[in-house]
């Protein structure tokens, strides 16, 4: 089976029902997307497929249908981080950091669709991403900051 991740094409020999998450992690050693629950409850596995945030633990590799996959490793430009990543660092969001790849991928996709979100918009878009450390207040602040950066860019 062939797939494109972060602009690179790969060939893997796995069963078609294997979730994209595990193909990325164990077959391709792309470990930014994390295993947290396996049932779309935590969002730690979030990646982009054709620019949209999806839970990679729920997408069977056989259903990828040529979709281009971007993981947290491929979010930044070669010489500069994505505005969401910059905002995350400025606001010192991460604690354990395990959920943050998923949070950042979710936020980046969301800001693509809604460049000027309200607090309520953020609540709706981000509440399926679980953080056990409780970094939510800074996630909210960082998304507003990233939105501003993207507007000014």
């Amino acid at each position: 089976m062939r797939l494109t991740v972060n602009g690179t094409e790969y060939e893997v020999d796995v069963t078609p029902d294997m979730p994209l998450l595990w193909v990325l992690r164990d077959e391709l050693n792309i470990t930014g997307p994390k295993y947290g629950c396996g049932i779309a409850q935590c969002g730690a596995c979030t990646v982009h497929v054709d620019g949209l945030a999806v839970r990679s633990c729920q997408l069977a590799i056989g259903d990828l249908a040529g979709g281009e996959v971007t993981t947290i490793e491929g979010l930044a430009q070669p010489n500069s981080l994505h505005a969401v990543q910059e905002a995350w660092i400025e606001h010192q969001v991460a604690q354990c950091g395990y959920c943050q790849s998923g949070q950042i991928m979710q936020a980046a996709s969301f800001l693509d669709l809604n460049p000027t979100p309200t607090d309520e918009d953020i609540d709706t878009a981000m509440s399926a991403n679980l953080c056990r450390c409780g970094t939510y207040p800074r996630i909210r602040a960082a998304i507003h900051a990233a939105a501003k950066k993207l507007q000014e860019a």
Partner: protein
Amino acid sequence: MPSVGKIARRTFLIGSAAIAGGVAFGAYLVNRPIPNPLLDDLGEGEAAITPFVKITSDGVTLITPRADKGQGSYSIQAYLIAEELDIDPNETTRTPGLPDQAYYNSEVATEGSPLPAYDESAAAETIRSVLRVVPKLFSVQITGGSSTVPDMYEKLRNAGAVARETLKEAAAQRLGVARADLSTQDGHVIAPDGAKIAYTDLAADAAGIAPITDVTLRDPKEWRYLGKAGLPRTDMEAKCTGAEKYGIDLALDGMLFASICANPGIGGALESFDASEAETMPGVKRVLEVKAGNPGVAVIATNTWYAMQAANAVVCNWGAPNYPATSAEMFDLLEAAVDTKDAYDLRQRNDGDVEAALSEGEVFEAQYRIPFLAHAPMEPMNAVVQVTDDRVDIWTGTQIPLFIRDRAALISGMDAEQVFVHVQPIGGSFGHKLEMTHVEQAVEIAMAEKGTPIKLTWSREEDMTHDYPRPASVMHGRGIVKDGRVDTVDISVSQQAMAPSWFGRLTGMRIPGPDPTITTGSWDQPFAIPNYRVTGYRAPDLAPVSSWRSVGASGNGFYHDTFLDELIHKAGADPLEERLRLCMHAPSRKVLETVGEMSGWDGPSLGDGRGRGVAFCLSFGVPTAQVIEVTNTEFGIRLDKAYIVADVGRVLDPGNAEAQLFGGLIYALSHAINSELTYEDYAPLQTNYHDYEGLRLYQTPEIEVKILENMPGIRGIGEPGVPPAAPALGNAIFAATGQRLREMPFNKHIGFV
């Protein structure tokens, strides 16, 4: 036996040892020097300066032995060394190093001391200094008890200062000038004429001279990093780019992947199993029975997903463990033990004459309970283990590397010196990674595939059902109010013993004596109540349990403060004013006053179905007060705003301390509102985040944090934010609705937005 004073002083001495091509320094073990772990693999021309700093011609390595579970310990340990060494920690290599006795944690046992944290008398300090020696003798390299900063505050700055002065001395000898005429900056020694010599260039010279150990630590006013707002965590960028490698991310050449299904009735046997379907599934290499840790059946496969799928397909017949099958039976046992002579365990608070007061006045009684709680960090348990003929290598995120080393030696039949534990960054713990069942299992699996690295990953379901949770408990409170004041508080808590359950798993030894965790967080509060008694009752052993963020105070903070709030209400007093009147500890009073000012406190009612609650708990030496504001909406309780004030003595990383405090509040509310483990057929019914849901972003209130520095000394901040949150929320809900919540999770009794 040296005197207590001598031991306490020597705790901080740095000794030295000459080695081939270099010099190294180690801490003393009472009268005996601890061998320096860096000596074993030093190359020619390398200088190891203290067990915390290593300098070679290639670069500077800072060794930060306390585990990082997300609380920022690697970062603050690096800054503590760097502050004295004069180097940007982001320009160094940072590693926890290999676990060693030299990294013993002298502060971890002080929370169990029989003295309340507000007691600063000489006698109290003497007892604490003895407690600091115990971990040293028992090789306890533990991360826990919010102890990293108090334990490392002097040790690491001392290490940085010794290294700096020794490098300066090496430069002084090379240049033929006095050491006093040299200065240091950003990894260089600066000569009187402004010329710079890199530390790396001085490594070989420094190896050949006597270390400079007579150092004076800098005045905090001179600090460049510590205490400064906006200090960037050293791990932040890696965590925002996917570059951070946690234990679960580790990949070794030729590695195979394993998963396991073990008996959810922990301690019960594996009677029989049928793996016929699992063996035929894709990618499966081998199915094997595992006896170490907790009996079960493991699958080795070509990736984790294949292993988990096959492990799910194994049909197991489990034997019953040695505890009751259901939560209902367990709570019956807890209730049966309260206030009985047979179950009496410990009474550390007994002021006035409670019996006399209760026999005379009108007694108010209330009964409380809290459930078992899983830690459920985002990263499930995992370990990579490789066993060869002469060594065992273990890569795992852990708070207890030396216990793991010793247990792996026992399982594999090797000597402890042949076991190497490589501690990995941890994706959350909250106490979960004080356990090692997964490592025991991984060692046994890897022994069956000698030479091949095996990565064992627990599924979320395996993790949730083998969590070693926070113990459930019940509390019976009796109290009397008189003349508008709280007069009598009598609290009886019944819980199974937690510390012996955990320590027994780690060491095979039973801790004798009472279990202080049954009442920590309630007996040790800084209040002067005329008749005031707190008693711990020890219920029989139930499901095996462990430490959960803030340990005893996680439940006792709720019991003590909520019951106090009930009595204050009965007395007709203001919740904040009466707490302040009763509080006899100046820094704690200041914390309460400050949270009152921040929240604009003018009583519990905010009108229109809105209310606020205040709560206080002194835990881990940190007085912490919180105010939470709620609205009773038609869709349930909504959390509007929270205020946190804590006093840590001295704050080293203000931004991270703030994050730990609001994170602690959110973690506490996650469970206070909607989480519990309930047992049926010996196993928790909750298996994943869908039925053990933490707080989500939309439920999180706006939070304001203020940190004070009036307490003596310096304390850690990872846990103290947890205990006051549940009572502050419950008290707020009472203010808004008149409904008193005496059992967690609260959503069993009231709806939330």
